């Protein structure tokens, strides 16, 4: 546990990716099996410990600490595990270095009931020092937040072993924590784990943002264009296995998200690996990302959710069919095979992402601008006709060309402390525009500013508070005093949730306009007129 706590502690303060890799590799070299496999799973977010949930931890700490003081502390620290680790009453008799093994913690908890879970945690917390307590709580709640993605963890395995990361990804979904077979293979002590035992993830091909100067060198005739859908990129893999049928849905980073989308399973053709965008679709109408968002990261999907927000696959590439690897083929051949497959399946939840025909870049630019009428479209994708399907982000093949965002000058009205990296600063801002003589809130933004700007915003909030409602502070917002924020957003929607009747998509603070008075901010009528175009 001590080695794992040290690793986590170092990762949490290390901003540099290469140094993070170095720390993980060193841990993999030094830690024993099965500890290191469990640590890796924890870093990837692949561990789920049902016997411990955040609510239980809160109950545990409520037995020992004044709830008001705990609440104020949590508000300041911004992270539940860290707050509990810091506030936990020290047991001065504790040995501080209980020989607690990671594997022991996990195997004990996995076999524990929900009643036993908190008791075990309390006993361990009494025995550990602060860093140990923090690491234990991070581990059991699964919210590590030390800047390590599943991808980075696999890259650490690649560096650790000298195997290319693509090779590791091909077997990754055939192995389970604590990965002893995988580690044995990587260290040359065992056979390659058999990936055919499970459907595997293939590294997706990614696009570069297009730059203005690219249009001078690129020829329209060399490219295929399609809409850029505002959903999530997934890879759908299926296989008929005798009487059984295997289906796996992978996120862009290779995480298995199959259980979140049972309604897509029957729409998929057999023995194929399809690349496409997961979207919410009601009849043939593609919904916006905010509808899809409610379906993400759910282990249990309610019947109401399946009925109200059904998902569909907007297919745009085909990697494999009937065991044949199509990735070396040029794009038009893959698309032709995909089109045939989609037509043969003839399922309303499986759609072919349509081509956007165009003669010149100007004509395509016009279509891209018009696409603003459809909130589910972010822009266009450009793919070279001669491109094979290549893992990673190869240069010169695929480009994304997003729409330009809209801008409005708004006035800060309320602020709240953020969580995670922004914790202990006022970083969630509600802003509004003028309706007659009054400001009406039109949205909330919590990103778009630098750390330096955050300090200024935080200071503004603390020095200009006129009211407090629990954690929310109301700040001064008069015509002649207050703070003007230039908000960029990706479109507007009508909304019954906001008093203004409007909701912005992805609003963010574009600039802080200390040069303007609130009286100069935009009016609601201006935003309403954008509704039609947005």
């Amino acid at each position: 546990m001590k080695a794992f706590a040290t690793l986590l502690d170092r990762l949490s303060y290390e901003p540099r990716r290469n140094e993070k890799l170095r720390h993980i590799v060193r841990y993999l070299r030094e830690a024993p099996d099965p500890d290191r496999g469990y640590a890796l799973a924890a870093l990837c977010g692949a561990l789920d410990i049902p016997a411990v949930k955040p609510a239980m931890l809160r109950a545990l700490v409520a037995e020992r600490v004044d709830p008001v003081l705990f609440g104020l502390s949590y508000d300041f620290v911004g992270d539940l595990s860290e707050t509990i680790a810091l506030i936990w009453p020290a047991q001065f008799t504790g040995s501080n270095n209980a020989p607690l093994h990671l594997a022991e913690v996990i195997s004990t908890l996995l076999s524990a009931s929900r009643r036993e879970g908190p008791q075990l945690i309390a006993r361990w917390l009494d025995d550990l020092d602060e860093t140990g307590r923090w690491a234990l709580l991070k581990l059991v709640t699964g919210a590590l937040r030390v800047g390590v993605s599943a991808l980075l963890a696999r890259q650490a395995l690649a560096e650790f072993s000298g195997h290319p990361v693509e090779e590791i990804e091909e077997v990754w979904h055939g192995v389970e924590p604590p990965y002893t077979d995988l580690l044995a293979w990587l260290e040359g002590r065992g056979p390659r784990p058999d990936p055919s035992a499970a459907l595997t993830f293939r590294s997706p091909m990614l696009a570069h943002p297009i730059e203005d100067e690219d249009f001078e060198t690129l020829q329209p005739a060399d490219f295929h264009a399609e809409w850029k859908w505002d959903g999530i990129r997934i890879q759908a893999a299926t296989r008929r296995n005798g009487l059984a049928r295997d289906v796996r849905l992978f996120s862009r980073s290779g995480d298995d998200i199959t259980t979140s989308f049972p309604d897509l399973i029957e729409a998929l053709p057999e023995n194929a690996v399809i690349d496409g965008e997961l979207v919410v679709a009601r009849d043939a109408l593609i919904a916006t990302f905010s509808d899809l968002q409610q379906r993400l990261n759910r282990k249990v999907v309610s019947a109401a959710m399946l009925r109200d927000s059904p998902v569909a696959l907007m297919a745009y590439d085909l990697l494999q069919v009937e065991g044949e690897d199509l990735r070396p083929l040029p794009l038009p051949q893959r698309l032709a095979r995909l089109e045939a497959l989609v037509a043969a399946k003839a399922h309303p939840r499986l759609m072919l992402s349509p081509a956007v025909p165009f003669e010149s870049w100007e004509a395509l630019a016009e279509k891209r601008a018009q696409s603003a009428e459809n909130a589910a479209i972010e822009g266009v994708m450009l793919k070279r006709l001669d491109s094979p399907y290549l893992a990673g982000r190869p240069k010169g093949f695929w480009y994304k060309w997003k729409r330009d965002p809209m801008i409005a000058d708004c006035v800060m009205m309320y602020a709240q402390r953020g969580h995670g990296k922004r914790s202990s600063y006022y970083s969630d801002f509600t802003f509004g525009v003028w309706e007659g003589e009054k400001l009406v809130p039109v949205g909330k933004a919590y990103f778009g500013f630098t750390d330096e700007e955050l300090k200024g915003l935080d200071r503004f909030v603390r020095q200009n508070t006129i009211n407090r409602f629990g954690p929310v502070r109301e700040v001064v917002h008069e015509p002649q005093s207050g703070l003007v924020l230039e908000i960029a957003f990706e479109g507007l929607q009508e909304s019954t949730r906001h008093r203004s009747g409007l909701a912005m998509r992805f609003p963010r603070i574009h600039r802080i306009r200390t040069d303007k008075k609130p009286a100069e901010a935009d009016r609601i009528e201006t935003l309403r007129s954008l509704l039609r175009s947005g």
Partner: protein
Amino acid sequence: MRPSDLLHPRPEGLYCPPGDFYVDPLRPVPRALITHGHSDHARPGHGAVMASRETLAIMALRLGEGFCETRQEAIIGEWVTINGVEVAFFPAGHVLGSCQIALRWKGLTIVVSGDYKREPDATAAPFEVVTCDVFVTEATFGLPVFRHPDPAKEVGKLLASLQENPHRAHLVGAYSLGKAQRLIRHLREAGYDRPVYLHGALERVTAYYEETGIALGPLARAAGLPRGSLAGEILLCPPSALADIWSRRFAEPLTVAASGWMRVRARARQRGVELPLVISDHADWDGLRQTILETGAGEIWVTHGQEDALVHWCLGQGLAAQPLHLVGFGEEAAEDAA
């Protein structure tokens, strides 16, 4: 008579009407009593200033000889009368020369503690408990998550990092008055005998500490060193300098910060700190509570920091308590001094 007849907040700062003076005022006033030399407490432009000998010297160093019209040195522990109000200065243990200020009038005693800490510190006279009716306290670290560890353990982390990263210059952000000198003393106590390098902003105050007889061992200037130097050495600088281009001149700089805020990970990460050392010149949660109880005060006024939590705790102890909502304190402390 109410305690607020003797002392209450005004826009200029804490004011004593019968004595006609302010304690640590924020704006220029005719007569000011100053607890210590940090810039959120000691400001220029007052008429008469009364403070400890060290605080007066530090103010002159940092603000210029003309920082006020007349100076009066407070003799520690000696009561003097100002317009009928008895006044005395007692050590606060915060930084060199830092004092609490006690006011006595018509049988009522109020102690304004300024900033203070209870941990031993070879560079500041230890905090002295003064029995009083009303205790005015800070609450910079007034949350139960703030418990400062043994500074020797924190300095040990720095020394271990020097061993592990001999190719990197260790740039330690530490406030120029108090924290920097205390850190050097802790390094010496841990047996570190290499020269400690100083950013120019730290030189004058550090020299003054040495003049008063505080031994700091070999010190060296960082100014004028060639690019890429100080691998495996310790360089102290103001926290704000850590993010400057200046800091990139040294050998693969490793960013260290010594502050009570380093207890919270997000704070360290927000400032790009790779090695956080929890060393503070303010009382932690236990220190604040212990001090409040030891003063025997029945009423507690909380000036700046995490007032809500400390007031809540006081009320739970059956003590009358209220936040004073003084604006302007702790701004500097929040950034650097804590």
